């Protein structure tokens, strides 16, 4: 089920030129087929150039390595990322420990250039490499009774200096509804810019759900559990008033302590302008249907 979604963000910086040109040709052909030749890329593609490798890998929140944005880049090298196994359990046909190398052997890795919007009102554009979570779930065989997917980050006190402080109730846990987890946009990222994902970004594999605030995209996953109940999530446990289970990017629902109406893209320097935050982080066409009929103020 790979390649269910095509990048709308595009840049020669990201993709080797040959691949870029062939994709352009494909898009061009598709557009020509629809009688839309010449329509080109979305008008805002220009402003959505991916952030640099340096920005993406040196400005991180990964509280297990410290609460400063630079702490993960400084401390995460302590994390052993190989060998790595992911336990998949709960309501699945083939529960067990899945070796990372084995997962990589059977998954189709593709590039996804996504907007990334942090709940702290900053954003980036990241060229991820990874595979669809749906494919990994299919590997384990989801049973009919499953409604939610719970995720857990690795917890190693000797490799993660930040866990000495109970900033959060470790280990970090997250969750998605099963339909969110199976959505074509939802991926497990294993790389950035075609390179192995660095530890500070969640090596060796981390969730990426581009229409939700960044903290939903849990890093360094060691466990995936299929359940029939809404699983607990770390930030919601820490402060239920401020962080809901859904945490979809929504410019109309403010964080109790700050506005979510605008964001600042990282990398713009000292005079970087704010820009309006988009509903579902700009992925409304793809995901709004998941929440049809739901009160998004109540289910924030």
């Amino acid at each position, binding site marked *: 089920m790979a390649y269910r979604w095509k990048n709308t963000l595009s840049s020669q910086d990201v993709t080797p030129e040959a691949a870029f040109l062939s994709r352009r040709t494909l898009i061009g052909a598709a557009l020509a087929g629809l009688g839309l030749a010449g329509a080109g890329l979305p008008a805002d593609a220009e402003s959505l150039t991916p952030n640099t490798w340096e920005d993406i890998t*040196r*400005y991180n929140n990964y509280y297990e390595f410290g*609460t400063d*944005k630079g702490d993960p880049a400084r401390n995460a090298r302590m994390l052993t990322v190989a060998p790595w196994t992911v336990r998949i359990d709960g309501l699945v046909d083939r529960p067990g420990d899945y070796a990372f190398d084995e997962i990589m052997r059977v998954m189709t890795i593709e590039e996804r250039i996504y907007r990334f919007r942090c709940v702290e009102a900053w954003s980036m554009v990241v060229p991820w490499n990874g595979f669809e979570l749906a494919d990994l779930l299919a590997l384990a065989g989801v049973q009919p009774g499953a409604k939610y997917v719970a995720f857990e980050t690795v917890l190693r006190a000797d490799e993660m200096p930040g866990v000495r*402080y109970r900033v959060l109730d470790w280990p970090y846990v997250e969750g998605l509804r099963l339909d969110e987890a199976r959505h074509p946009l939802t991926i497990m990222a294993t790389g950035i810019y075609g390179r192995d994902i660095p530890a500070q970004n969640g090596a060796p594999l981390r969730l990426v759900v581009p229409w939700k605030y960044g903290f939903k995209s849990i890093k360094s996953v060691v466990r995936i559990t299929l359940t029939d109940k809404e699983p607990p999530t770390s930030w919601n446990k820490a402060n239920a008033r401020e962080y809901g289970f859904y945490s979809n990017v929504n410019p109309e629902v403010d964080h109790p302590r700050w506005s979510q109406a605008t964001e600042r893209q*990282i990398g713009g320097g000292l005079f970087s*302008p704010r820009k309006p935050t988009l509903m579902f982080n700009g992925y409304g066409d793809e995901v709004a249907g998941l929440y049809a009929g739901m009160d998004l103020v109540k289910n924030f």
Partner: protein
Amino acid sequence: MWAERINGLIRQVPVWAIWLFYGAPSVWLFYLGLTGGLGAEPIKALERELGKIALQLLIIGLSITPLRQYVGVNLIRFRRAFGLLAFFYVCLHLLVWLVLDVQAPARIWTEIVKRPYVMVGFTAFLLMIPLALTSNTWSVRRLGPSWRRLHRLTYVVAVLGAVHFLWLVKGFQIEPLIYLAVILGLIGLRWRPLGQSRRV
């Protein structure tokens, strides 16, 4: 006596040296911000650093009396400079927030009113204005004993500043708690049980 010796050394330090030493980081931080030295998000980094220096200066100001009373080291000559420098950094912090961070004038008032942590920080700034205005020698003479009462507002300002910091971070973080604990400790040192003589 080592305290005497330290006081002797302190007397050699001119007040302008304090201004220079603690004023320089403001210029340096702006330079770093412009040249990429503050990382990928220089606006937040600059805002945070300026705020933290202001808190540190308030802490230095609050430790002058206890240092004299408990250790015998006398830094009273520099207290005005530390207080005014703290105000200077709070002003820069506020300006960076207004001009570089929030940007749109329409959003500024909403932010102040709607965000409790902004309100707390802004209140601390407002309370510092009368303190800065009355920091000159003429005002000290003119106001007499009420000058001292007025300047006890510093305690309120410092606590509000630390609460502002604690309130804006995500999760249960250590750094703002340390600032708050130090400030409360320094204020606590001034507290005397009823009946004992009180010197400020």
